[in-house]
């Protein structure tokens, strides 16, 4: 009876992921004394965009039209590799963590090529920043995954994050797991373009990173990209929360309840960070990412000992 749980977890994941940016924005609004948009704002935006027509730049080629589709597909396949119900994933194999990271990289490659396809200097600038920051995030992400793999004695996301006896006795490694979780949260902010690396609320092209890349997308294409970004936040929410639960989450329906819980926690955390910190200067971002990766590296060294 494990199949239905995994599939319903995937359905729940795809359904609820757009609440994360909603929760984050709502938290930020409340903490900064505004009323703010409702939590389900992104659903309304997506619904509006899906029903619209599109405007294409005359410079663009098919790359621009294929990219949103590829990004969405790659992100969903990455979700299939994660143990969304806290037990096991729908598809798992040794080293699927590498496939997970590579699928996210595929999405990034498509997004960046689509940006360069417009021939816009703004989008070129955004693409350049995106790949620069991603190059810094990638080693940190792999260090975190390696640390989890060492603890779980296997390099499949299902054993790293799901039900696994090797992880059950993790009291001794809990400090390093906490370090990895903090580091992953910091990297998530960078990877998913949130404050302090990027500000999704900025309205000036020159200061944008992720927003400027999607400047020329419209209609269903933009909806696919926005939805994929929300899904990406969901992926990291699942990783961060599950790695802190030794031996895997509760089974059955309680395990399913963990999924919205992790979305809520990540959304709140992002909202709080965005209300109390300002965005970093671009030149300070490498330091921020390197610092967070170093924390994961300490975690790895502690478990390697």
């Amino acid at each position: 009876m494990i199949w239905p749980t995994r599939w319903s977890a995937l359905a729940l994941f795809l359904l609820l992921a757009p609440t994360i940016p909603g929760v984050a924005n709502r938290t930020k609004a409340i903490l900064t004394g505004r009323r703010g948009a409702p939590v389900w704002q992104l659903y309304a935006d997506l619904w509006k965009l899906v029903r619209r027509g599109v405007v294409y730049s005359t410079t663009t080629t098919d790359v621009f039209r294929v990219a949103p589709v590829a990004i969405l597909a790659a992100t969903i396949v990455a979700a299939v590799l994660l143990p969304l119900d806290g037990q096991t994933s729908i598809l798992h194999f040794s080293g699927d963590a590498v496939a997970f990271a590579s699928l996210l990289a595929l999405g990034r490659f498509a997004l960046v090529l689509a940006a360069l396809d417009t021939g816009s200097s703004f989008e070129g600038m955004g693409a350049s920043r995106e790949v620069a920051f991603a190059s810094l995030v990638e080693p940190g992400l792999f260090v975190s995954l390696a640390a989890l793999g060492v603890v779980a004695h296997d390099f499949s996301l299902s054993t790293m994050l799901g039900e696994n006896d090797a992880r059950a006795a993790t009291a001794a490694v809990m400090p390093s797991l906490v370090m990895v979780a903090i580091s992953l949260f910091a990297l998530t902010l960078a990877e998913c373009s949130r404050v302090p690396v990027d500000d999704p609320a900025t309205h000036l092209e020159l200061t944008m990173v992720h927003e400027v890349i999607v400047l020329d997308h419209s209609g269903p294409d933009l909806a696919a990209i926005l939805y994929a970004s929300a899904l990406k936040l969901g992926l990291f929410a699942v990783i961060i929360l599950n790695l802190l639960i030794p031996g895997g989450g509760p089974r059955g329906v309680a395990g399913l309840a963990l999924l919205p819980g992790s979305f809520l926690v990540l959304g709140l955390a992002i909202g709080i960070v965005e209300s109390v910190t300002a965005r970093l200067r671009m030149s300070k971002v490498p330091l921020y990412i390197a610092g967070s990766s170093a924390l994961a590296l300490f975690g790895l060294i502690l478990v390697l000992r």
Partner: protein
Amino acid sequence: MLALFALCATWTVSAPDWSFASLAAAAPALSPASGVAVLALALVGFGFKAGLVPLHFWLPPAHAAAPSHVSALMSGIVIKTGIYGMLRVLLLLGGAPAWWGWLVLSLGVVSGVLGVLWALAQHDVKRLLAYHSVENIGIILMGIGVGALGVAYHAPVVAVVGFSGGLLHTVNHALFKSLLFLGAGAVYRATGTRNMEELGGLARRMPWTWLGFVIGAAAIVGLPPLNGFVSEWLVYQGLFTSSRSSGVLRLALLGVPALALIGALALACFAKLAGVVFLGTPRSNAAAGAKDGGVGARIPALVVAAACLLLGVLPVLGISLVNAASRELAGASRLPFPDSVVAGGRAISLVALVTIALSTLFWLARRALLARRLTRHEETWACGYDAATSRMQYTASSFAAPLLGIFGGLGGVRVERTTTSLRTRSVDPVLDTVALPLWSRLRHSALRLRAIQQGRLHFYLLYVMAALLVLLGYLAFGSRL
């Protein structure tokens, strides 16, 4: 070459003849000192051939200067003879001590990171690709290093997975690098320039070349569903499995972030190459008038692209290709190939197919959604400014500038900014600060010998006579000295 002759000389001291069989038989009889010498010389000699940092400096100029289909062969096949040579020596010696494995692994990391950094700073399409050969040799050597470590620390599974990663990446690199060089050659033929800053917008004008090139780019970056991903996954697997053994071998896990950095930087570099050359608007008249080559130019590229896709969707094919060789190298011919790798290969097929199927599904859904909608074509958004020209596009230099600002110091790459211009300058530390000055000093001192070279034949005959006399004298009286 000299290093290779020295290698053979050291080895054959204890072997009856030069055949591989007798060399292998003589391997146990090698003294420890000559064993070290053989391994070190193999690394230097074959490393030169393969383009290993810091012995890579001949490679980028040579590969960039050759006609493109020859560059494809040089990068794809010829430098791999260096890898083959190293593995042959390893096989004949029956394994290497741990220090060699660690050395090869670290040299692989250095080659990979520096190769891709130097590539980021290039503006010449083919030179950039040539520096990527240095990077990929680094990835291959990481696999081989892990394999050698597995043998040295008696961890056969680590050894098999490491070697198979290195070997499969050798095959894969031959495929996607040929594809990329064919694309670069087509661009050069169509536009007459290899300078990225004069290209742009070629995807519209050369759709077939673009199709091949973008597949090659995604493959070399290691993205699913293409072949580069499979071999990088294997190298990662080698590094991961090393952590499950006990002792020092676990430290090989620290190669993981290095490989991740190499992959991410390669993505940045190929986004720059593909984006600046093929996308956007043309930056020169030559690029604006470019046309695809004939059918004869398209077919080879498409065949290679299909091979990249096939090995990416069916990794089991590639894995079975390197299966026997990697078990032999690991000294584990009788052990079965690790199940986890075969199972992983099958699962990767599924990942690749589902990705392709989902993309197709979404594409069809998007077509259906937009079928009866208004689709307008307008200028690219430039804050309401509607006279944007191609000169306002981001250049290759600007694109790479943030990354080179962060990492450039590692490889001696500098970003030069003035108020009106920005360019990245790449100084190859080995070529420009060591090899070229050394060569000019050598030439300078060689000029002193000029006096004996007058171009008169009878003088030269005299030199030959004198040399013969000295040799005869040595033969006659040498033994008494």
